[in-house]
């Protein structure tokens, strides 16, 4: 009986710290564990006893890459619990802030973390030495996102201007003008990015994914919507965000500080760009739809390696829609709506760049947080990433270990996992015995 173990001690070019161990027996995969070993961070426990205004700022600290996602899901959950609703120009401002974060995060992932896999570099820095103009373009794009977040949120990461009910201060039209100027250039860069990544050499792989993403009646859902599920063939099923816990169940697994999630009893569904695109591609902005068509995406994409193309299309959409919102922006009469605490339960979900991020809070009689539940996208995707890896490795176990490890890392980076977010993640170890 032959045994083999492939171990990746620390995954590179992903957010946070995780490892992978693969156990092989007689040429078959006996076990595969995506290990999220970053310590549990106890955010949910930390939130108990806090005032109803505090979750957006506390949970923003879960991640330096997508703090706005945490703020938006938290705000909406608290507002739902308190019977408040943010509409009109204040909702537009939230969406604008979120587009800024999307541009920042997607540009970073596409250019510095993911593209090196397709061009044969170990790192974005090594790629920059040979492709200076490309990396400069990526940094310009990211900067446009940074400036938008700064203009609305007060600083480029961990914005300080977000509050339950809206903002501490609404920016003037004049203050958004420089960000709009940079966004116009960024939109061109984003279109060029789609054309660039669409030309990469993609492995011929498709998975029969079960997708989960928010859906909105008139928008490519980012800020809000109902939960949509489906395989991209039939009309998606769906449920209200408030019914999340009836459908999505988290469970502990021994090898990870991240939880695994089941959707209606089944493990291994996918959230993130492929899911959003499969369930919502018709609602992209016309310019983003054109870019997607020119890139050959079709209405549904099941090739995880082409997620980089979907992300690039989503950058086009974010730039395009942000410009539309800035053009139509009217300064709100007041920067926030009142949100008075009351006992109850509130649910909020939004689309972080990596997928659906759900928050639930129960407020007690004093208006303090009695329970908090946060379900980040990477934890939801973890079982599906493991399934992708099984499909990839099964026929290739005889390859040298360093090749196996490189293949695994590429497959994982397709999903842009944010290990820090999900650490409630890579070291690849293949155990051939």
């Amino acid at each position, binding site marked *: 009986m032959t045994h083999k173990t492939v171990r990746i001690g620390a995954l590179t070019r992903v957010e946070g*710290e995780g490892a992978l161990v693969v156990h092989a027996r007689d040429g078959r995969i006996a076990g595969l564990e995506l290990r999220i070993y970053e310590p549990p961070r106890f955010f949910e426990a930390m939130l108990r006893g806090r005032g109803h205004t505090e979750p957006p700022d506390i949970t923003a600290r879960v991640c330096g890459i997508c703090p706005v996602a945490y703020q938006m899901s938290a705000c909406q959950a608290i507002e739902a619990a308190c019977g408040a609703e943010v509409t009109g120009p204040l909702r537009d401002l939230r969406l604008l802030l979120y587009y800024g974060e999307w541009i920042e995060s997607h540009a970073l992932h596409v250019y510095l973390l993911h593209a090196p896999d397709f061009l044969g570099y170990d790192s974005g820095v090594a790629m920059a030495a040979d492709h200076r103009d490309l990396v400069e373009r990526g940094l310009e794009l990211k900067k446009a996102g940074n400036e938008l977040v700064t203009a609305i949120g007060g600083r480029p990461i961990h914005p300080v201007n977000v509050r339950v009910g809206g903002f501490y201060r609404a920016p003037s039209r004049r203050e958004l003008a420089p960000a709009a100027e940079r966004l116009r250039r960024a939109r061109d860069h984003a279109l060029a990015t789609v054309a660039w990544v669409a030309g990469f050499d993609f492995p011929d792989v498709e998975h029969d994914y079960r997708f989960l993403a928010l859906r909105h009646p008139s928008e490519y859902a980012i800020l809000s919507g109902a939960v949509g599920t489906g395989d991209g063939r039939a009309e998606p099923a769906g449920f209200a965000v408030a019914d999340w816990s009836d459908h999505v169940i988290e469970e502990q697994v021994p090898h990870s500080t991240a939880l695994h999630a089941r959707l209606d009893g089944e493990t291994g569904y996918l959230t993130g760009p492929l899911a959003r695109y499969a369930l919502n591609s018709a609602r992209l902005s016309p310019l983003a739809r054109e870019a997607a068509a020119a890139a050959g995406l079709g209405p549904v994409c099941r090739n995880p390696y082409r997620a980089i193309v979907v992300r690039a299309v989503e950058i086009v959409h974010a730039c395009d829609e942000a410009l539309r919102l800035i053009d139509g922006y009217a300064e709100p009469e007041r920067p926030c709506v009142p949100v008075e605490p009351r006992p109850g339960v509130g649910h909020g979900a939004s689309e972080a760049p990596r997928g659906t991020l759900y928050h639930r809070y129960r407020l007690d009689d004093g208006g303090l947080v009695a329970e908090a539940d946060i379900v980040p996208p990477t934890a939801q995707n973890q079982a599906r990433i493991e399934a992708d890896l099984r499909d990839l490795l099964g026929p290739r176990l005889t390859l040298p270990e360093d090749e196996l490890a490189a293949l695994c890392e590429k497959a994982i980076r397709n999903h842009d996992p944010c290990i820090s977010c999900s650490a409630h993640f890579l070291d690849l170890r293949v155990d051939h015995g």
Partner: protein
Amino acid sequence: MAETVVVGIGSELRGDDAAGLEVARRLRGTLPPSVAVVENGGDPAALVEAWSGAALAIVVDAVSSGAPPGTVHLPAEPPAPSRQPSGSHALGLADAVELGRALGRLPGELVVVGIEGGDFTPGAPMTPPVLAAVRRTARGLRERLSRERPGGPRT
């Protein structure tokens, strides 16, 4: 573009790791207009952006070399890039130097000031010897940079 840029790097949530940020905060508004002061939470792209085109960049960051906490390393050698690049979360000054070099966007002169930290525990306050080193470093930089004629050539 400012002639000189002072960049304080760090995380205010990890005890003495905030030393660089705190130096920047103490210098802000006290220096000639030719000197820009920037805080950086660890984003190498923003770091490259901050020092592009500057004649002089002074980067202040907490270090852990085994020296007594509060030791000021001036000038400190920029750290060697890790052979094991990790996620963007862990990209640091060394990666920013490498990225800046690859893009031809290093400052004319790069001075790294390291402040030896003692306690990097999440949620901990800065320790007294490191706070004292922050005050000393801010005072020293203010004296050096205030001597320069606003907008004039550096000597």
